[in-house]
């Protein structure tokens, strides 16, 4: 009878694992609205700083006692847009608590004026927005994290003692829980 119980238990554990695996699959996805591709638009006066990876890299290695929440996103990435309010909420709740949120847009140059600027303005985004414009992705993706396969949303949380990379989306509670591993 004990054997039977053990077997039953094994089966439920196996089934449980299968469930968990299913939920783990969080992937980026394009937003439903089709792209307006505009040629010949100039990006002379984009509202956000534009970096190549070398220019951007110091933001991943600040050593000033603060905790940084660095979120990689794009306006065409639907799950990124869905989790954006959580990063905004963290920003407003924690900005006086030595936490800085940096929203790193991977939008393409022809989207900066047409999509990125209107999005940030319409949503009244308060956290810092920067543009990472470096097509040599195979070179810089591993420099952000060796674990990163290249999907977004992706988030790096770090301070001088600790850093963790997440290739996944977050709920507010999940993001807050992760952040509290850094600030407590």
């Amino acid at each position, binding site marked *: *009878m004990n*054997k*039977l119980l053990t*077997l*039953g238990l*094994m*089966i439920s554990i*196996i*089934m449980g*694992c*299968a469930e968990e*695996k299913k939920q783990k*699959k969080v*992937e*980026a*996805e*394009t937003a*439903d609205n*089709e*792209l307006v*591709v505009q040629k010949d638009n100039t990006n002379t006066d984009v509202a956000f700083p534009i970096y190549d990876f070398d220019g951007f890299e110091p933001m991943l290695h600040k050593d000033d006692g603060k905790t940084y929440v660095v979120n990689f996103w794009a306006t*065409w*990435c639907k*799950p990124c847009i869905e989790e954006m309010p959580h990063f905004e909420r963290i920003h407003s709740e924690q900005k006086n608590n030595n936490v800085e949120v940096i929203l790193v847009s*991977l939008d*393409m*140059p022809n*989207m900066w004026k047409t999509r990125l600027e209107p999005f940030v303005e319409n949503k009244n985004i308060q956290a810092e927005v920067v543009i990472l414009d470096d*097509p*040599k*992705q*195979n*070179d810089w*993706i*591993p420099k952000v994290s060796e674990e*990163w*396969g*290249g*999907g*977004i949303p992706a988030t790096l949380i770090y301070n001088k003692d600790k850093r963790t990379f997440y290739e996944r989306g977050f709920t507010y509670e999940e993001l807050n829980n992760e952040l509290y591993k850094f600030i407590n």
Partner: protein
Amino acid sequence: MKKRRILGGSALLLIFVAAFAMGFKVETEHNLDKGYQVGDKAADFSLKNVDGAMVSLSDFDGARGFLVIFTCNTCPYAQAYEDRIIALDAKYKPQGVPVIAINPNDPSVKPGDGFAKMKERAAEKGFIFPYLFDEGQKVYPKYGATRTPHVFLLEKTATGNMVKYIGAIDDNYQDASQVDETFVENAVDAMLAGNEINPKTTKAIGCGIK
């Protein structure tokens, strides 16, 4: 005595069920979490092309290999690479390595990637290669594709289609004229010449498969 036999029988049955569940589970986990690595044998498939015909790798008698490319209508990166995918097919189909494009997205989540929309896009862009619909999303998890576009170069051998390269098409999605490393072309050329492929895997930002 009789009762005991029944219990014994049930225990045996349960062991069988557990073993089956475990075996099944291991395979599923391998497929979903990792997919193919370079060196693995890739499974064939039978998927519907935009022209309505079913297409399998085994249909291509004279092929020396395949460029299986998971791509879609809606992803900006996939769109940025459409012309380059056409060029790859034009260059390598005559050398025996045709492009086989597969749309892995679920149209109930991504209406822009439905079969009718695939037909439209293929006609609009003049796709010269099969553009297949992964109905029920059965193929992309086996391969371990995670984003579009995501390339799997296969070499046809006597023992099956072996995975030779996994990753991006080249190192500049923005501007084909600014490309320094043509990862896929280098990989196909090396494969056809019997040389070592380097690199065998590359990373790129892409749209997650939904």
